[in-house]
């Protein structure tokens, strides 16, 4: 059997390494950080971790409906494609910063991309 994407990336340790970098990048980005005002940071970091675990192909049972529900409020506040793109940028940027191989980064990006319609409530 070949290793899963999650295993190739380094499993939970890799997710943990990515969370801080990713979340810091997102909070630093004036285009999107207003969506993260007034949220509890620990709660938010736990969510980021769940998201990254999913994007890394790790164990999760997120459904499209969960994604919709979780972002419905943000969509009301104006969340759109440009914001989704910004997050995608930070996702790849994070993985590059961690020196992960390009083909794996591509696979992660593809999984994350597959949530776009649900996240944006379309």
């Amino acid at each position, binding site marked *: 059997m070949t290793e899963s994407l999650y295993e190739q990336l380094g499993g939970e340790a890799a997710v943990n390494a990515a*969370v*801080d970098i990713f*979340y*810091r990048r997102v*909070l*630093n980005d004036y285009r999107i950080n207003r969506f993260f005002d007034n949220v509890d*940071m*620990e709660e938010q*970091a*736990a*969510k980021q*971790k*769940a998201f990254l*675990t999913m994007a890394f192909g790790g*164990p*999760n*049972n*997120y459904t499209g409906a969960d994604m919709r529900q979780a972002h419905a409020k943000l969509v009301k506040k104006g969340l759109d494609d440009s914001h989704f793109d910004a997050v995608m940028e930070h996702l790849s940027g994070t993985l590059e910063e961690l020196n992960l191989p390009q083909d794996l980064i591509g696979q992660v990006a593809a999984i994350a991309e597959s949530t776009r319609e649900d996240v944006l409530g379309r």
Partner: protein
Amino acid sequence: MTVRKIKLDEQTVLCQPDEPLLDSLLRENIEISHGCRQGACQSCMLRSLKGKPPAEAQHGLKEGLKRQNYFLACLCYPQQDMEIAYSHHRDYVTYATVKAKQMLNPEIMQLVIETDEGLDYYAGQFVNLKREDGLTRSYSIANHRMHGRQLSFHVRRLSGGQFSEWAHQELQVGDRLAVSEPQGLCYYQPGQPEQNLLLIGTGSGLAPLAGIISEALHDGHRGDIHLYHGSSDLNGLYWVEEMRSLQQRYANFHYTPCISRGEPNPDKARGRAHEVAFKDLTALKGWRVYLCGHPDMVAASKRQAFMAGASLSDIYADAFHVASSSVD
């Protein structure tokens, strides 16, 4: 494997072999918040009241939570019968006698009590103090652990604050109080003596920080320790001399009292404590950060500390305690 009995409050639930505890509880219509069901979101956190939970069920929790026997229900396959609680159980573990009251500044009183039984706590944790009629408030322990059964607290007097007004005016040396089990995650963890520490507190938020600092210094902490204590005016500061003399004794301890309003003062920094701190210290990668005081300050500082490079797992703040002791 056998079926395990799980006691939660008044209810007993049977957990089947190979069934995560979360599922057994939900099956019995017990409301447990949950999300990912795989240990990532930590929303299903519960606490074991009798003994250690299974180690796998503590996966990913902060060290402090582990030590206090918190665990995640979705990862928990009970190995024995368990008694569990939603979060903090509010049992009062001991009683105490008031030993001394002393004003530290016009608003804040140091209250010293001696407990009937020794308490196992960490510097920076808090306890609930309960008056005879049940009125209860949380206060941080302001001393380190070498004090045996003596605990001291900084009680800020708030107009209309029932407990604090009573403690200031009526509570007498010799009176008795009930004391809860020590709680809270904002405390000093020994083990990384080289790590730099940043502590930011406002008002009586100095109490837990002072406890943490004396514990750290006592423990031989070698990293730099920076304390920023702030208040709106001069009256709100206290222990300035104590902290200054500590600074003289320990080369790695740095103290900055801050004042945000009123007359400028030559030997106090001007501005709010966290603003002064983050202006001085801009690179916090690898640092451990403790935050105590006003909830807005704590929330803003958490973010700033994180942005300056501190890892979230190295940022300690206790929102509950902040809400109940420093604000009232």
